[in-house]
């Protein structure tokens, strides 16, 4: 197997991208407004705290149960899909997955593909891969279409173009689509996009989609969407290819309803979406629509690494609602692109190290204040802050130390830093030593440096009090006796 390639990890560094985002007032304003709106929407549809918590526990249970028997369920899914006429392909790496798509395209003589929203295809950089081979792959989700038109990547997993305001989109459409005048009228802008896409749905040879839930029991692929483009992509072209990570499997059809309810309410504050497609196979004899062939590609791309570790496995419970991003104070400040990974925000920080290795994602686990907002809103109760702490541990664990659970272990390991923490622990676990050092800090309070690294760029350096609490307590007791 090839080492995971940091496909999406482009220079400049995380820190430089963060600084750029932080200094972009328009971008920060766009994110603050959008995230505040989404948080309020979510609150309004989860107005019964007891129901929310019960549903979260159910969602967590369903996902954990599915993951506990993942290999068996994947086999069951494959068998039932095959029975339904869906051709199942396995891909360990994104290269393999891309090659499978390309093969299918070659066999069916396809020149044009149209794609519904799919984060796994972003993971594969499928558009790029196909374009390099002379095949056009057009995004059909409005947000994805905007992002593709701008030559960018999605900045959010649910709302790919959330970083743009309508003026920016108006400028983009005016400059990139022939015959379009500048307008900030949202309905007109959407109509412009629809007109382009209608033609493409009709012309495309292959439709690509993601999968929200793959039901092992029935061999059904569930697709959640609002715009109808997912339905168009999966029914109009003569071939449909669905791509999904191996973790998206659920055991039973009845598992879908609670997860769907959690997904849509957490993501956009919708009780239901406009469409929930249940795809169980290609067009059958006598049916009027649907593709002649349906393919399902099951992609690993590092997921089995997370699966293998009892604690890290919880990462795979994710149903990709994006609520953790919407509620993350870091994501709100820097936006999705700064992360440099396909999945941004809190979920991105815990899944990307599996997809790309800790070497390529070394700055992500530490880029959290561990405030816990992500874990609090996660509809399937992924303990994201705990997993971040675990990944920090893996980052500073010596590269050779066992057990070797995450590729790139020790990416932040530094013998000097390790020695400092050992010294700190020694100081904190020897009472006399501790008291002597805090006593000294109090005595040196007026001689301590006024500048402490970047802390004092934005704050005054904290000054120790003239006497420590240990001293004051002692003096107080002496005075009383």
């Amino acid at each position, binding site marked *: 197997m090839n080492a995971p390639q940091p496909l999406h990890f482009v220079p400049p560094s995380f*820190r430089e991208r*963060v*600084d750029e985002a*932080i200094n972009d007032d328009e971008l920060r304003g766009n994110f603050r407004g959008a995230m505040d709106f989404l948080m309020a929407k979510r609150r309004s549809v989860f107005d019964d705290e007891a129901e929310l918590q019960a549903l979260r526990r159910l969602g967590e249970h369903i996902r954990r149960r599915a993951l506990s028997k993942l290999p068996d369920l994947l086999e069951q899914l494959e068998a039932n899909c095959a029975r339904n006429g869906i051709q199942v392909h396995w891909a360990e790496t994104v290269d393999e997955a891309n090659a499978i798509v390309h093969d299918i395209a070659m066999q069916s003589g396809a020149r044009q593909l149209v794609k519904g929203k799919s984060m796994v295809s972003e993971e594969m950089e499928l558009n790029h891969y196909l374009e390099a081979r002379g095949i056009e792959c057009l995004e059909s989700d409005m947000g994805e279409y905007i992002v593709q038109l701008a030559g960018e990547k999605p900045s959010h997993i649910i709302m790919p173009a959330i970083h743009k305001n309508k003026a920016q989109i108006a400028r983009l459409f005016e400059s990139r689509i022939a015959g379009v005048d500048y307008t900030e009228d949202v309905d007109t802008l959407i109509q412009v996009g629809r007109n382009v896409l209608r033609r493409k749905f009709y012309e495309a040879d292959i439709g690509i989609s993601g999968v929200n839930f793959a039901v092992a029991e029935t061999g059904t692929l569930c697709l959640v969407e609002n715009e109808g483009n997912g339905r168009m992509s999966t029914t109009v072209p003569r071939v449909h290819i669905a791509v999904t990570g191996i973790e998206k499997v659920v055991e039973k059809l009845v598992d879908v309803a609670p997860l769907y309810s959690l997904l849509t309410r957490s993501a956009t504050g919708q009780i239901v979406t406009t469409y929930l497609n249940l795809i169980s196979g290609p067009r059958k004899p006598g049916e009027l629509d649907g593709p002649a062939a349906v393919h399902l590609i099951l992609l690993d791309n590092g997921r089995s690494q997370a699966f293998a570790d009892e604690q890290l496995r919880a990462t795979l419970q994710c149903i990709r609602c994006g609520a953790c991003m919407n509620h993350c*104070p870091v994501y709100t*400040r*820097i936006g999705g692109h700064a992360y440099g990974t396909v999945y941004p925000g809190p979920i991105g920080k815990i899944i990307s190290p599996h997809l790309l290795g800790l070497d390529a994602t070394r700055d992500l686990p*530490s*880029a*959290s*204040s*561990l*405030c*816990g*907002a992500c874990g*609090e809103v996660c509809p399937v109760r992924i303990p994201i802050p*705990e997993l971040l*702490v675990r*990944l*920090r*541990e*893996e*980052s*500073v*664990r010596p590269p050779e130390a066992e057990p070797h659970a995450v590729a790139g272990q020790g990416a932040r390991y530094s013998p000097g830093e*390790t020695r400092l*923490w*050992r010294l*700190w*622990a020694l100081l*904190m*676990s*020897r*009472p006399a030593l*501790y*008291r002597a050092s*805090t006593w000294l*800090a*109090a005595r040196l309070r007026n001689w301590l440096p006024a500048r402490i*690294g*970047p*802390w004092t*760029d*934005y*704050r*005054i*350096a*904290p*000054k*120790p*009090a003239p*006497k*420590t*609490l*240990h*001293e*004051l*307590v*002692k003096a*107080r007791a002496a005075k009383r006796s």
Partner: protein
Amino acid sequence: MPATPPAKVYLFGTCLVDVFFPQAGIDAISLLEHAGVEAVFPQAQSCCGQPAYSSGYMDEARRVALAQLDCFPEDWPIVVLSGSCGGMMAHHYPKLFAGDAANEARVRRFSERVIEFTDFVVNRLGIALADLGQPEKVVLHTSCAARREMGTLTTGRALLARLAGVELVEQDHESECCGFGGTFAVRHPTISAAMVADKTRAIKACGAPNLVSADCGCLMNINGALQKQGERLQGEHIASFVWRRIGGEA
């Protein structure tokens, strides 16, 4: 009504209170004594170990945690002056020692005794707080870990509600992190700065002349930023504020 308060408790000051906010510790002790509870402050205590834990240095965190365990031998409640340190001791210690046969049970018993200061005053002390101060407004900041792990938002509010002359005002985005996060503020200074800038803006916008918190990490961050901005407003530990309001001597 709260259960009968214990006659004796331990006070865990935390390292930040020890060095930067020691008066908060003295005021907390005074307040507890005022309510008839003896607060014992073991001189051997230092830090809960959270900095190492959240940085991924588990062996070091365990070593410091074990040292604290030795400081509180009697079976009294351990009142902690910071919610996030309380969360570390109550919720993360058991995880740190899971599967460690020699310490697991001992750590669990220790963790069960940990209680955050405002929680203790509101739910375990049966005293009325006779507020002697002039009417004034106050804004409360709770650390994220504390509000989620220890419920300090509700207990902090309940404590302030017991002071007749004090009006609690809400800040915009109250539940949002101030950007401290221990080593986060050092490793990712610009993100942290953006967060604390928004937090101080929201706090200033309330117009309250008092800022209180039960978490000195946040206070160090917020106070430092306010001071850099040339503001006079400085946050104080809620124990000091309450003690002053009920007429206690500093």
